């Protein structure tokens, strides 16, 4: 069993959990993910690691309630435990010195998994410019943390309530327009957002890394459910990724596949609500 040491609702439906998992925390690296199960009848759900504290032995997860499993996870309280927690999974981000100027883009709760990458980029001595996107100011997360490890932070909100009005690509365009020399973009967020970032950087020839979170069951390579077309190759996000060269990713297929279980997901959510597990 894995104990929830801290629970905080960052904004309606978006939660911060610190989970006690000392061995995972000891090995976790930026870019990796974990798979958890809330209870004995639960799904295995993959979540990207938002932070880790090797001394406290904790892994930080940020999640948004979207379906039955996240609803059940959100119903847990500080001090409660979840049954399974496996990781760290996937290849760590490629981070080293002298990479130059890195633009780290996080959209929605995608800011959370981009944070440890931006921090590691910063710790390796690279220049980090972060772009954070949200629908509106109230649901922007991790701003303070991102400011602490970034040379510069740009914010974009859909409604213009904070930062520039528009999308993360609007902010990215500002950087390009002012002549910032960008060596790499790392973008994490919804598929639509990552695709727009990739389309924006493609003509500029800027290396762009995206972190994918497709449907998966085991997370160790066995099921192949997380397969994604990357250039000419079929890759498994869990063992080959989760990060890939965004310019090679087939986003249409990726986003279509993420809808495979939509009807069942709705049914499961109803079920969880009806039997009162969600609250």
């Amino acid at each position, binding site marked *: 069993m894995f104990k929830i040491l801290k629970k905080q609702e960052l904004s309606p439906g978006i939660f911060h959990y610190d989970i006690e998992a000392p061995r995972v925390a000891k090995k976790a690296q930026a870019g990796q993910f974990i798979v958890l199960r809330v209870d004995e009848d639960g799904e295995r759900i993959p979540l990207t690691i938002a932070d880790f504290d090797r001394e406290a032995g904790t892994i930080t997860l940020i999640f948004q309630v979207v379906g039955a499993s996240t609803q059940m996870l959100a119903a847990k309280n500080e001090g409660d435990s979840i049954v399974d927690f496996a990781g760290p999974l996937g290849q760590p981000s490629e981070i080293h010195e002298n990479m130059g100027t890195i633009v780290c883009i996080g959209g929605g709760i995608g800011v959370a998994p981009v944070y440890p990458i931006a921090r590691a980029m910063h710790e390796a001595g690279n220049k980090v410019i972060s772009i954070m996107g949200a629908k509106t100011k109230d649901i922007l997360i991790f701003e303070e943390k991102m400011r602490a490890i970034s040379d510069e932070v740009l914010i974009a909100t859909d409604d213009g309530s904070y930062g520039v009005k528009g999308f993360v690509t609007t902010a990215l365009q500002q950087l390009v327009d002012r002549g910032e020399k960008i060596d790499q973009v790392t973008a994490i967020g919804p598929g639509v957002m990552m695709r727009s970032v990739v389309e924006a950087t493609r003509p500029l020839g800027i290396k762009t890394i995206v972190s994918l979170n497709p449907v998966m069951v085991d997370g160790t390579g066995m*099921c192949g459910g997380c397969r994604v077309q990357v250039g000419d190759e079929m890759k498994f996000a869990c063992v080959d990724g989760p990060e890939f060269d965004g310019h090679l990713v087939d986003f249409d297929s990726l986003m279509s596949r993420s809808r495979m279980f939509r009807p069942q997901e709705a049914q499961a959510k109803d*079920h969880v609500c009806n039997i009162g597990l969600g609250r």
Partner: protein
Amino acid sequence: MALVMEKHKMPEQDPKVRARNFQEVALGYDEDTAVAEAERCLNCKVPKCRQGCPVQVNIPAFIGKIKERDFDAAIDIIKESNSLPAVCGRVCPQENQCEKHCIMGIKGEPVGIGRLERFAADYQLAKNEEIKPIQFAEDAQKVAVIGAGPSGLSCAGDLAKMGYKVTIFEALHVAGGVLSYGIPEFRLPKDKIVRREVENLQKLGVTIEVNAIAGRLFTVDELMGEMGFDAVYVGTGAGLPHFMHIPGENLNGVYSSNEFLTRCNLMKAYDFPNHLTPIAIGKNVAVVGGGNVAMDAARTSLRLGAENVYIVYRRSEAELPARAEEVHHAKEEGIQFKLLNNPVEILGDENGWVKGLKCIKMELGEPDASGRRRPVAIEGSEFELGVDTVIMAIGNGPNPIVASTTPGMETNKRGNIVADEETCATTKEGVFAGGDIVTGAATVILAMGAGKKAAAAIDAYLKSKK
């Protein structure tokens, strides 16, 4: 007394009924039938059956005890060589092993050795006897086993009985490996058989850690270093599913057999939404492949409510790698065999869902390297099979996680770990490997046989080091 030339029939659920439920197909012999079947054994002076068994169970001896109705003694004899008899009695390909060599099989049917093994194992499980934990010596040496599948479980069981303190590290949240995620409930019940066999091993004194992903949570070097293990056995099994690399494999409605079976068996998607893992099954399902896994996926599809389920296989019936019994059961249940057909493309609709499988007809040409006649496409014979679900059951490649994080342990060009056939020793001192990660996908019993050999070799290695 006249010889009974045919095996006593195995009581089974009616095909029409069972094709819609997940309960076990074969119901098992009762005591009288078991004794009557045991009496067919001629107790040969040179028991060839035993040579056919990958773990050399003393077959005539245990059958002799069943004849005498001493069922406890029978299972004790089996357990001397086989730590998972209730599993093997159900899923071993006996027709290619012990029963293939049975003298009774020359003029009639061989003795139902597998059915008798299952009977004896179930007899003991039903008694629910207390298992005495092993008393380990204070300074007992420690062995780590990676993977709680058949190979790891069998290796761990043998090592524990020799007095070694064994910890099995399992990546998934449940032990059993393919016994838990792959083989369906209707062939191998999970709670009734697999979980109990695993628990019995734990009661004996084997520690099992789930959610422990070797290569990520710790490396093999760390196991042998700071974690204090004296030897390691790698039994990580068959890993990554193969796809055909034909157009359309990323459409919705396409699964690997691993994903399909894992959702259903391990995650219990057949009981959705009480269990939260979903599975989407169409009305018409094509399963590509001809092995046991393909049969399992096809029969699972029926039970999930599919109306038409096809096995699409590029060779003919004679080459089907699946056990004859599985093919027979599948046919009885209404699985339709589309033999000598090879998929060339999966066709999708405007929403990204499967709407058909384009196949080409094949004929058999000259024998290939495997000795089987090579299937050759008949030009211009393409046709479309109307299906909305496609399951690829064409095998697995090795999982790279352990091998890629273990310097000094060699793999071959396919990515399988290189290990000595007799001792399972890898190129790294103190590290042994066996089962599918070494041989490529094979059977439960061969993996168990490797685990057993490795246990003996690890014992010899550790004694030499003391």
